[in-house]
């Protein structure tokens, strides 16, 4: 164990800067400064898309779910597709912050802050859809198990939608906690740099009187470790439970035991792709080349190809199980997916999720930012279509051919999807302006100077690795 910790310490520094203060300078620069033109363009674009989506949702709530393209046979389509898509995106954050932390993947320090923020915003987007997909969203509070006067009418604990509610709210709470706790040292740094005023007072309040003492650092490390341990099962549980929405049903194409691992792998796959998309953009627009290096991109790409492989395996397994089951409905659903009216969606999914990531086997591709960016976009699109395929193709032709129907989205649905993207980017761009996008305190643990190379790390903040090693010992 000790050797491995030492080896980890010996590996080439992930970030090379001249001094620790430069880290602070680089990362705090956007905070409080004047936003760039690029930021304004992005922000206004995101905000206007969000506005369009809000108008669409407003119209839908005022008029009825009928403004979506759903019908008596296809009761869910864009709504739940978007929900599962965003929940999936949210997975990378926890994975990076919790599991990779426990596995002592030091490269995570450059991306974990942004990834966790991404998680929060993605879960916010995701949470929107179960709400607005209801016929009577103003009664959404009936999903809470709260004491009431209706003869103590309880919720149905057998319903996967109820499990979903718990899973997602837990996930959001833990993610928020984890993100915030990780943010405290950096908030203190920003507080110390801020001019007196309301901002400083707020920062003082949120940094909880952080003073950088050894005692504070030690407690902080313990809390962070415990939270990482708490969050780890959630990475698996949330998407497992989301997959039960489908797996516990009787609909062929949904009723499958493979769904939990399949969904978790798919979620990490899509989440890593979204982290890549965001980090490559942030790197270019916020001058973070030193902190998010090609090595970082390379490592994350490896995760993408690994999870992509799992997803591809799941696709194959589904077909095999359909064949092996000798169940005609099951067999039909999968043939219908590949060759039926929605085959275009299925093959879009396969091309984006199975074929495109194969490029990442090549080191040159993994280190080429443009190529990785393109692949990550493909994966994002492919994973949206995966959920669309699972939901719509299973529903539209199920047991009784008399009820088979088609589905096409309306403009309102498309606007709602766009609106959720707008919400996500609006939140993310605001986050970039006010909060350090890279965890300064953590990055400082993995830096080296360009001259000193791997071994000569001149000044290190209170080392957290020995503390960790000590605890494990």
């Amino acid at each position, binding site marked *: 164990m000790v050797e491995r910790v030492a080896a980890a310490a010996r590996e080439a520094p992930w970030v090379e800067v001249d001094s620790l203060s430069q880290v602070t300078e680089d990362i705090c620069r956007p905070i409080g400064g004047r936003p760039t033109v690029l930021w304004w363009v992005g922000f206004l674009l995101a905000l206007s898309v969000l506005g369009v989506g809000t108008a669409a949702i407003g119209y839908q709530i005022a008029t*009825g779910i009928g403004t979506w393209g759903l019908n008596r046979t296809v009761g869910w389509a864009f709504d739940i597709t978007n929900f599962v898509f965003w929940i999936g995106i949210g997975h990378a954050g926890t994975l990076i912050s919790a599991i990779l932390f426990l596995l002592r993947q030091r490269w995570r320090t450059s991306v974990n802050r942004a990834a966790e923020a991404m998680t929060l915003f993605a879960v916010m987007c995701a949470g929107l859809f179960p709400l607005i997909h209801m016929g009577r969203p103003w009664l959404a509070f009936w999903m809470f198990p709260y004491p009431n006067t209706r003869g103590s009418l309880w919720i149905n604990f057998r319903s996967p939608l109820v499990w979903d509610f718990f899973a997602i709210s837990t996930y959001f709470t833990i993610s928020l906690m984890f993100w915030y706790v990780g943010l405290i040292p950096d908030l203190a740094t920003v507080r110390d740099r801020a001019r007196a005023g309301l901002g400083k007072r707020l920062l003082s309040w949120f940094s909880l009187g952080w003073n950088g003492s050894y005692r504070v650092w030690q407690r902080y490390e313990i809390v962070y470790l415990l939270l990482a341990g708490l969050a780890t099962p959630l990475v698996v549980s949330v998407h497992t439970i989301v997959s039960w929405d489908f797996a516990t049903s009787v609909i062929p194409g949904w009723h499958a035991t493979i769904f939990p691992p399949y969904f978790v792998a798919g979620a990490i796959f899509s989440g890593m792709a979204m982290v890549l998309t965001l980090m490559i953009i942030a790197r270019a627009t916020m001058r973070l080349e030193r902190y998010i290096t090609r090595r970082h991109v390379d490592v994350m790409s490896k995760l993408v190809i690994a999870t992509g492989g799992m997803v591809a395996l799941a696709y194959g397994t589904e077909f095999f199980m359909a064949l092996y089951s000798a169940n005609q409905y099951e067999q039909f659903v999968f043939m219908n997916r590949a060759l039926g009216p929605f085959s275009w969606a299925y093959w879009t999914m396969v091309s984006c999720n199975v074929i495109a990531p194969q490029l990442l086997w090549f080191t040159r591709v993994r280190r080429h930012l443009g190529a990785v960016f393109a692949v990550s976009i493909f994966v994002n699109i492919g994973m949206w279509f995966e959920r669309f395929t699972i939901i719509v193709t299973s529903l539209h032709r199920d047991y009784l051919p008399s009820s088979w129907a088609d589905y096409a989205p309306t403009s309102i649905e498309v606007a709602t999807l766009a609106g959720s993207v707008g919400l996500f980017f609006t939140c993310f761009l605001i986050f970039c302006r006010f909060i350090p996008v890279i965890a300064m305190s953590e990055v400082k643990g993995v830096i080296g100077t360009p001259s000193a190379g791997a071994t000569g790390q001149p000044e290190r903040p209170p080392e957290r690795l020995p503390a960790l090693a000590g605890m494990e010992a």
Partner: protein
Amino acid sequence: MANDTAPRYWRNLDERDAGQGGPCGTDEFIEPVLPDLFPRRGFLKAAGFGLAALAAGCTRAPVEKAIPFLVNPEEITPGRSLYYASTCAGCSAACGLLVKSRDGRPIKLEGNPQHPLSRGGLCAVGQASVLELYDNRRLAAPQRRGQNAPWAEIDTEIVARLGEVRRRGQRVRVLTGSVVSPTLQAAIGRFLSSFDDARHVVYDALSSAAILEAHERTHHVRVLPHYRFDRADVIVGVQADFLGTWIAPVEFTRGWRDGRSLDGTPPRCSYHVQAESILTVTGSKADRRYRIAPSQTGLLLRHLARHIADRTGVALPIGDLPPAPVADSELADLATRLHATRGRSLVVCGNQSLDDEVVTNLINHALGNYDAGATIDLVGRPSKQKQGSDRELRHLLDEMEEGAVGALFVLGANPVGDLPRFHAFADLARKVPLTVGLASSPDETSQVCTYVCPDHHPLESWADAEPVDGIVSICQPVLEPLGDTRSALESLAVWTGTPQSAYELVREYWERVVFPRAAASEPFETFWDRAVEQGVITLPTAARALPTVDLAVLNRIAPLAPAGTRAINELTLVLYPTVTMLDGRHANNPWLHELPDPISKVTWDNYASLSPATATRLGLGEGKVVRLEAAVGGAGKAAMELSVYVQPGQHDDVVAVAMGYGRLGTERFARVGPQWIDAQPATEGDGPVGVSVAPFLELTEGTMRYTTRVVTIAAAGRTRPLAATQRHHAITASPRLGLAATVARPIVRETTVAALAAEGASRDRSGHEPIRPDLWPDDHPYAHRWGLVIDLNACTGCSACVIACQAENNIPVVGRDEVRRAREMHWMRIDRYFSDTGDGSVDVVHQPMLCQHCAHAPCETVCPVLATVHSAEGLNEQVYNRCVGTRYCANNCPYKVRRFNWFTYRHDDVRANLVLNPDVTVRSRGVMEKCSLCVQRVQEAKAEARRLGEPLRDGDITTACEQSCPARAIVFGDLADASSRATKLAAGGRHFRVLEELNVRPGVGYLSVVRHRPAQGDDKRHG
């Protein structure tokens, strides 16, 4: 309480002096318990006001004041339904009705089980006609040239002008549809008797005049015989949709079903052959179905006659014939079967060709089917359901052309809308000095009439009916007329000069004519009360001898025209009535427009049906608009543009278009559905629903012809998708989707009569039931387990149940666009599957599909808020006010029977809302709904049994769908009761459950389809 003899006590002298002392104890507390300052009532008022003020901010809907009856009508108990026996006026079949009246307003029509013809059945049209009572578009007052005027003025003017007509000796004509009411018939006769040259002209938009004419030729009586399908063991239907639209489909369906009851050993099952050009409801139920072109009908019948003549020895002089359209061996086999069942066989033809009808009559004559007690009743109790004479209609048109008609009264008919020369009749009517229409809604004819004297809705007036000789029924009013309308009986009486109420007229007629015929020993009062209570009386008939038949009549029929050659884009136009729209007299009824056609499943439109081969040949696909053109009446040209529908089982030389569409007034349905940014109007260019086919009708050889016009067909270059509720028509899918797609799904089971007979005594399936694993112990035995058993063999797909369910359960109309988006709301649908027979025809299965009330319901486990739960009586219950609308239950329903309220559907027509059933919630937007197995009827029957202190008997509860099923295909019952009919049926060998292998344990079961098939494999799964 206090009466004068009670002793008065007092407590003190003041009280005694005041004389107020009541019986002891009534006024015990002289001091108020609470000080006056804050009395109890005051406190409650204040508290209530405070609460109300608090709650006012979050009121959901404005409170509307309801004013109760000040003096309650004696017979009305709020909350309890009353049933009145009456007669349906939806078409001329005059089925028996029970009008369900609730709080003084009729809300549903049901079949009268005591009626000897309809026997409790009622078709979709009949049931839907209750909605027309509350139609805002009905005329509310008489009109003179389109302007409302008082009755007195109008009557004075009409009588004055009639006087002028009488003085000038001009002709007076009354044009009606078939008049099944003997009182009305008499009233018309009395009215006309005061004129020198007066005649009553009868025509039917759906004419059967050729049958009457043919009997005049062969049997010398001009009557429509009463067909007894219940007595027939072999039925041959030739271009006659007797289960769907022909003459009296409800009665015929029941008779046909009785002949296929599968009771006894060997099971009773008539052999039914249908030869037709288009696929009809009747053809869909045939054991053997031949596709023939309309022009081949005569040839087929003549070949059949030849075979029959060979077997019976009756000399039917049939000349040399070209080869038959059907293999001769098959016809020979059919003739053998017909011959073997002489007197119990029946051949019917409905193509309106006089010659073909004559041949049909002679076939039936040769088979002895006219004999007493046989299948055709010509002299005992002939039918009066079709009396029209197209020849007389033709004559009337000529008279009008000449300007010889002085006064024309149109009653119960819409000649301007119906007749081929659409504009011409309007022009002819303008040549008549006095035209009076008695329509109750504005129609094409009332627009050209000088005076419109609106008739009551049949539910508002007294009338009677005698659809079949000696079976007389009463039509009684169940509410005060909603508008200032007047019964046609009364109008005629006023113009005759003897004003009388309809009640008096009917009663008087019954006393004078019907009562003596009844030869009853009871006084008339009792007889009348019994008639009104039961709704129908069967009168004895005098035995009459069958007229002799002149076989030489065959020599007078025209030789068959040789088959002409035809251009590649020419097709024969077949105009047919649909089960929903008939001749169009109910075109104002949105329920019927939204009812899917039983065969095509298309709603809200008529369309050009083409066979798949013809559609491929012409390069036309479904939804492509085509233009049909024909030369009519010399230089005239008729044209119409319709969407194509590809109809398997139709003949390749035929394009079929439904009648009854394109009616005046249906423009109002353009925006009947929810209106939102993407909503499409229900009609094209805000015009009427569908296209009128009247210009294409032919009135030749003295009969109205529906199947003779040759039209050219050409693509119009645009597309208009049809709104069909079912788009996939087979139980299998395309082989392109892999092998699994081609395997028939075990949804419908089918067997043959031979296999069923062979099964014989071993039909008990106890032990045959597969054991299904269960996660839960079966420790909650049901007190009742309500369920349905639906006999797919009896079900004809007529869709009466769909409308029954709509009326019973307040199901909204959603409009064409929503149906096109697959969002129809019907709780009960009829799935219809085709399978190829290999000879171009198709086998058809109709499967009513509704909530299966699963014991292990997949919908129940997934609802997050427990809005759908299982009752202790086995019902799957939907709790509307708990539903938040996640639609998860609908997704997880293997039968896809759940319906979601996508919008707030319109209930803004206050008058139309009167038809709503107060026992069933009107659902709001965003909630799920589905079949409740008429839980309100279950509860009503249980409450009634409890009130009477009697146990609930099997049959006390009928669901709406079961009640009106003309084929008695649906049986509701308690599956936990071993003696119920449903349980017994469920134990039979034909019983199966749909998707049984999912182990959801449905409460609804089905009985397999049984057909006569040449010896082959037995238990075939449909495919």
